[in-house]
């Protein structure tokens, strides 16, 4: 069976681009704090979601709606409404992270397929089986902390489908629990759907030297001609004693295209591409690349050469935790 390519769409145009480029499945979210990419100018109104689902279904593709932030106390109704509206729009599944929201969805929308978001950080078979058994979760998006053998070990002990990230921005290895953006700006991906919100980001270019500030803190400085990273604290440069450098993460993107055969062998069902904040140009190019890769794998042909470095943060890529060379 061909591995499923799960593609991001921040706008209806990106959804159409993904479907036309060969995406099996597209994930997207509503234009509010219920999804973890709540950025200015992005996301879908209810009407756009209905149209997007109809377009995808008309071309044989599926749509998953990400409602993957953690509901605020007293504000749960916004998240409940999002789940109901996703079902009404004809979504093939919702991607949820919060236990309470999962329980509510299982009770109120028994026919709606639920996937577990990476934000839930389910990283072992016991936890995944709990979500599957108690809350009816059909698929889990694995956090980016696992090596390929660890993924194989999980799949050997669960019937729940697994989906793994293969391309795009990397996140610190405590997904759903990161407080760095919140510390610097008061807003977080977990609660507000924004990591390093653009409203708190400033760039200053002086003679080609680019300073990026987040919440008033200068978090990195790159020289003329050097590539620029995202303005997130995890990619920031810190000074300790005489040493200066990236403390949490280097400014690189994940690219696991060459690991697709091993991931298939490890029992992975779906390959996820990060980047709902990216353009339709990115979506189309990355989707074409990965669709060609899984089709080649299925046909027993050699994997095509990737051409995605230019689209990567820092213009450099890594296989991340899938190959834990630092251990």
């Amino acid at each position, binding site marked *: 069976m061909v591995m499923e390519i799960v593609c991001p769409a921040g706008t209806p145009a990106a959804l159409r681009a993904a479907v036309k480029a*060969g995406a099996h499945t597209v994930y997207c979210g509503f234009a509010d704090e219920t999804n973890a990419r709540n*950025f200015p*100018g992005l996301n879908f109104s209810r009407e756009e979601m209905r149209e997007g689902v109809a377009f995808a279904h008309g071309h044989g593709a599926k749509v998953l709606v990400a409602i993957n932030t953690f509901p605020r106390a007293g504000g749960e109704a916004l998240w409940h409404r999002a789940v109901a509206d996703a079902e009404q729009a004809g979504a093939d599944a919702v991607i949820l992270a919060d236990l309470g929201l999962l329980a509510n969805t299982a009770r109120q929308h028994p026919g709606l397929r639920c996937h577990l978001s990476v934000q839930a950080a389910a990283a072992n078979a016991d936890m995944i089986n709990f979500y599957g058994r108690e809350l009816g979760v059909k698929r889990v998006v694995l956090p980016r902390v696992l090596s390929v053998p660890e993924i194989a070990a999980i799949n050997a002990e669960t019937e729940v489908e697994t989906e793994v990230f293969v391309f795009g921005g990397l996140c610190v290895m405590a997904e759903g629990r990161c407080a760095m953006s919140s510390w610097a700006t008061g807003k977080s991906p977990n609660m507000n759907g924004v990591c390093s919100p653009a409203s708190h980001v400033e760039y200053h270019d002086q003679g080609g030297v680019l300073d990026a500030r987040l919440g008033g803190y200068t978090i990195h400085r790159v020289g003329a001609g050097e*590539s620029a990273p995202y303005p997130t604290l995890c990619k920031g440069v810190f000074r300790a004693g005489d040493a200066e450098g990236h403390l949490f993460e280097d400014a690189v993107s994940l690219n696991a295209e060459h690991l697709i055969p091993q991931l298939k062998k490890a029992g992975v069902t779906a390959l996820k591409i990060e980047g709902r904040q*990216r353009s339709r140009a990115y979506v189309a190019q990355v989707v074409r690349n990965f669709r060609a890769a899984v089709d080649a794998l299925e046909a027993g042909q050699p994997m095509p050469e990737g051409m995605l470095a230019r*689209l990567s943060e820092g213009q450099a890529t890594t296989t991340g935790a899938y190959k834990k060379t630092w251990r």
Partner: protein
Amino acid sequence: MTNASTLIPRIPRALSLALRPLPLAPLSFALTGYVRKSAARHPSLIRRLGEHDRTHFVLDPTDLPFVICLDPGAGSPRVRVTRRPGTGAARIAGPLAALIGLVHGAYDGDALFFSRDLMIEGDTAAALALRNAVDDAELDLADDIARMTGPFAAILHSALAFAERRTGVSLSRPEEAGAW
């Protein structure tokens, strides 16, 4: 040190200098008309700006001798072409080919930012909203301009396609024909 920049075509300096005497008032008038028609045809353009629909933007084609000041006017947009630096809360700067390529979805904004071909200053949230709104609108400058020229549309289309091939600048929306 790495050289991050991609191979974005630049307007030759000689041509840029030759454009200096261009009268800016008629250009502003024409661009205002075009942007108003586009906003009417793509209502989501202004809607996606949200709280930034009155923010003044400076679009700075760094290889041209002028900047484009855009006021979305909450749905009644106005464009003023002026000499540098121009005034606005958010500035998006890069070679003309990069800015037009963004409009047409030929380039990815983040990739241009990583490669330092695109620079954002001032209100980052507003700049991001504008970029995302334009990306969703699927604009096609060649098509739109040709449509406005009535009987000369076919000739203009051919001329723009020729210019696109010669310069490498994305003057129209790339085909999105699927690979499958």
